[in-house]
């Protein structure tokens, strides 16, 4: 009890020091450093001694279902963003769509840098060790390592198509992804490695035999020509360290200093997950590997398996309630227990197309705010409106042409399947943009010209999911003291009905001076748009440089 109290007290102090106490920096402090905003999150320490760990599926599942994991403090701003509210590149995330131009060809190529499995004889080196889809591990004729998984019998193209498309989507969003190749496997091209081991029902490991693949192929969808369609995931370079959790940090990784529930790119998976129906948010679907950068060992974090997407699971269509309810929701359980199964839920009546390849995936009844993964995910529970907005901007950046090109990489044999998946993704994209861009002031791309004219964009209006505020925008201008964290008004607020506004006279002219501008909508339909975004500029010899964006200043 005493420890719990001490911990609670200390966490409060810690968070106050990290977030709130910054309102009153010490004499030596400053809000913006000269290198702000940083574009890359550094890994400054050698992490070579990080030890592999194995996160037990059932322990992970149980803890997430029945306990609130990670920091429970509400309304904590993401801890790994830079000063302009963006996520720097890192071994977790690489900015692509939404921040940098991504061509359709680049998106459709995704993470691929190496060729497909070399043709010829392939050698099975191990049975599949995780997941429910039938598969195995093999080396191709050039000795490259591949993890192979098949479509379940009766559901052609479902699992493999989902993996291929989701792999490209999540790469384009910025996550580290494995290289997946769609392949065709024939039983007669397989050999068994003399070192391959197999553990049958008896539990006693023995050398693997070709006949051990009987069960794998019995559960896999066989094509008319006797071949089997599969996804081959190239083995990742570097030492495999196991998965990561969506809360806490890895205690033996010196560079892992931001609790995962406070990492924006992990919080953002709530929005990306809703878009793609990525319901299986477990540590087992992630993978950390040790790579060498600048002669140091550092940990790279992969979203290894994003195949639990759209409307199909490893062995057929999803359960109807997936995406709508947690596996166990004690509050709901209590209600339904006493109310004879009521209240009813949307999943009970949502109409789905009868489609084996895409499964149960639809956009008409979909509500992003109601979407849920299988288990409560700490990073999702910590997500704030600014995190959701950041994610929604990226979803909205996928134009229809790109979505259709990405869906094509699933190589669905029926055009109707391809159309259904793309149509639903477009529908869900629009709903996500409308929902999350309407929930916070969506002004972006602030530029302050040397002569003091501020221009910006409204991301929601540009995405076609909102109308400009009826009475335009108002800007409140201040000189900002970077050391004392104080602002003093400059002139009167200025207003515009467009997306640029002239500042008052008297802006700091000397290099190193800062200006703070609070920009809010006036008369916007969405109340949140009438709340200001605080933006900060630093005067440099070349003009004004954007150094700070705080989309939720009132949340401090």
């Amino acid at each position, binding site marked *: 009890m005493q420890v719990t109290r*001490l911990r609670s007290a200390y966490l409060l102090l810690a968070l106050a020091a990290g977030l709130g106490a910054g309102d009153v920096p010490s004499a030596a402090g400053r809000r913006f450093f000269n290198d702000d905003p940083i574009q890359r999150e550094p890994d400054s320490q050698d992490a070579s001694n990080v030890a592999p760990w194995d996160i037990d599926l059932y322990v992970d599942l149980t803890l997430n279902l029945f306990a609130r994991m990670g920091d429970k403090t509400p309304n904590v701003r993401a801890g790994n963003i830079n000063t302009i509210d963006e996520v720097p590149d890192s071994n977790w995330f690489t900015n692509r769509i939404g921040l940098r131009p991504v061509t359709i060809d680049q998106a459709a190529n995704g993470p691929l840098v190496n060729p497909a499995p070399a043709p010829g004889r392939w050698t099975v080196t191990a049975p599949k060790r995780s997941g429910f889809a039938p598969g195995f591990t093999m080396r191709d004729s050039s000795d490259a390592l591949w993890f192979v998984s098949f479509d379940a019998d009766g559901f052609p193209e479902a699992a493999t198509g989902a993996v291929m498309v989701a792999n490209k989507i999540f790469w384009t969003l910025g996550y580290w992804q494995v290289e997946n190749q769609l392949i065709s496997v024939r039983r007669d091209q397989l050999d068994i490695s003399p070192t391959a081991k197999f553990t049958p029902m008896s539990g006693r490991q023995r050398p693997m035999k070709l006949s051990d693949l009987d069960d794998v192929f*019995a*559960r896999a969808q066989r094509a008319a020509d006797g071949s089997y369609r599969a996804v081959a995931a190239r083995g990742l370079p570097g030492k495999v360290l196991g998965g990561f959790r969506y809360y806490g940090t890895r205690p033996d990784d010196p560079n892992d200093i931001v609790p995962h529930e406070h990492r924006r790119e992990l919080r953002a998976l709530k929005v990306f997950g809703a878009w793609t129906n990525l319901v299986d948010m477990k540590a087992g679907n992630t993978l950390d590997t040790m790579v060498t950068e600048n002669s140091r060992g550092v940990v790279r974090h992969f979203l290894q398996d994003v195949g639990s997407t759209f409307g199909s699971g490893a062995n057929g269509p999803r359960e109807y309630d997936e995406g709508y309810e947690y596996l166990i929701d004690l509050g709901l359980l209590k209600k339904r227990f006493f109310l004879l199964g009521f209240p009813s839920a949307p999943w009970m009546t949502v109409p789905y197309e009868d489609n084996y390849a895409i499964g149960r995936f639809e956009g008409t009844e979909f509500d992003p705010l109601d979407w849920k993964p299988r288990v409560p995910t700490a990073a999702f529970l910590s997500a704030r409106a600014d995190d959701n907005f950041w994610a929604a901007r990226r979803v909205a950046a996928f134009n229809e042409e790109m979505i259709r090109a990405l869906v094509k990489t699933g190589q669905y044999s029926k055009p109707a399947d391809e159309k259904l998946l793309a149509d639903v993704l477009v529908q869900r994209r629009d709903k996500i943009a409308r929902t999350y861009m309407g929930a916070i002031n969506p002004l972006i791309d602030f530029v302050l010209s040397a002569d003091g004219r501020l221009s910006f964009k409204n991301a929601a209006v540009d995405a076609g999911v909102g109308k400009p505020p009826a009475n335009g925008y108002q800007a409140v201008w201040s000189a900002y003291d970077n050391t004392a964290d104080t602002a003093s008004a400059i002139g009167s607020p200025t207003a515009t009905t467009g997306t640029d506004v002239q500042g008052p006279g008297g802006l700091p002219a000397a290099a190193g001076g800062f200006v703070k501008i609070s920009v809010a909508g006036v008369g916007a339909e969405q109340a949140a748009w009438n709340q200001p975004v605080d933006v900060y500029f630093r005067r440099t010899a070349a003009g004004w440089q954007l150094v700070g964006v705080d989309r939720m200043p009132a949340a401090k």
Partner: protein
Amino acid sequence: MDECACHWIQYARRGLLVTLALSALLLGPGVANAQESREESIAAAQAEKAKHLAPYVPNRAEALLSRALTALTVEPNGFYPMFGSIYSGGGFTLGAGYRHFVSDRASVNASGLYSIKNYKLFDVSFHTGSKRARPELTVKVGWRDATQVGYRGLGIDSPEDRSNFRMQQAYGGAELTERPVSWAIFRAGLTYEDFSLSEGSGGAPSIEEVHTPVTAPGLGESPTYLHANVSAGIDTRPATEYARHGGLYEVAYHKYSDRDDTFTFDRLDAEIVQHVPILRENWVFSFRGRLQTTLSDSDIVPYFLLPALGSGSSLRGYSSWRFRDRHSLLFSGEYRWTPSRLAMDVAIFYDAGTMADRLDSLTIGHMKSDVGFGLRFHSPVATPLRIELAKGSEGLRLVFAGSAAF
């Protein structure tokens, strides 16, 4: 250093790292420090953590969960605990088994069970195959001792007063199961069954004190049988021990050949189960019909092998073996709802059944019935715990079972 102080230091370090990390990365607004750049600031936080690196140690909750999961995991080879049933009405039963695989899919299993009513079971079996690796073959020998099995006479109107008998059964035989396609199931078996009947124990009088061979056919005899059975069924349920859709349509034929032919008889069992899901299985109406009929009116079926009703798997509001006769008919209906589709079902049920000495005497108008309420804790394929409260004309009964109702 006491434990609390150690924890405090750990939490303090962890908190400090969180603070440093958030401060270093975040400007909302940030904090003061001695570094000259953001990168240096982050590097300082990482360097600070580097001083306190520790291997991952599961916390108390994780360790506890891991231990619990390990305890629940049954290894393929070795000893394992058993919670089962020796014979209906035996009460709470515990036991242990030992399994040893002799090849990839073939195992030898020895088990022993004991119940609070002094029922005993020893069983040694050989099993090969699986649902996927067809066919399945089970060969078994064993001995069962049920010390106080209830008997109340013949027919649906038999009196409530109970007598007990003791049944000891030595058996040895084999059964083959084949599923040529996922929805079809065929079984064939041959078993040698040697029964020894004697005075019952427990609070009720022994059977011979109350009944005669007229009211308890075969009383005083201990026949030995060669029991042959074949069955064929259509089974579209996703799992036999838990289903919210699909059905079972099965017919089984049993031939009990008495060694001296006195008590030879043939029985036909027909069972229909159908689960009707409503609104994506949030609600399920489940129906069951079962007929057990002795094929020849001239055959004598000994009292302990007569079709029966009563128990947690038939007429749930009545005690085990409450009704016995040559023919039985059972209907059950359930309204189920699923507060959690991963873990729990709730059901309101109704059972009705009747017995008769002639098939054409089985009438729907003359049935015993019960109503009840049940909780089922389940996985996607099994029902490890079913708790039901049922009310029949003879009072309330609480059912604890480790299997699906039907």
